[in-house]
């Protein structure tokens, strides 16, 4: 993300940022890292 966009997000009202944190938590719980699934697969076949 561009620094200007990050700066814009940082300037949002605190309540709006807290709503976004809640969204991020939901996304993280809904879509756990695919890397872990990939790592769990056996290699070499």
């Amino acid at each position, binding site marked *: 993300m561009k620094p200007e966009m990050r700066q814009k997000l940082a300037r949002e009202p*605190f309540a709006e940022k*807290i709503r976004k944190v809640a969204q991020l938590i939901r996304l993280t719980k809904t879509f756990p890292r695919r890397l872990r699934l990939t790592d769990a697969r056996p290699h070499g076949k």
Partner: protein
Amino acid sequence: MAINPPSDNLPLAAVLRAANELVAADLIEDWALGGALAAIYYVEPFTTYDADIFFIPKDEGLTDGIPAIYAHLQSQGWQIEREHLLVGGFPVQFLAAVGLTEEAVREAERIDYEGVPAKVFRAEHIVAIAASVGRAKDKARIEQLQQQADLDKTYLENVLHRHNLKLPTL
């Protein structure tokens, strides 16, 4: 205080209201929001899984009055899970403030969050606390605050000097 079930938003207003009630109940002297949620007050939002409430104890005994705080919050419907108290399924840590964190509570910025009066650590204190801890994620937090928060450099230098701290090399 009524406890709401888990919702789409973080129950931060309920957390802050509860902290105010602890002051009213004479269980703590003062408090402020610290940790990641305090940093988010100044920077872009990021994922965090708990709230850190730093408090100045009324009871200066060995336990800092934590058993009475837990008992009070449990009587209001909060649940205990390991070192966290849960409100609406959201974990909250109550941490006794001392030294740098006590100063951070006393000099915290007063805010209004959804109609609830609250205090949040100043960005300069968040930087100083991160410098004192020094983990990789603390260095990242310092860098983020330097880029996105309007730090008062003179104030920060004073805090760092008084607590014998230096900013890490980023």
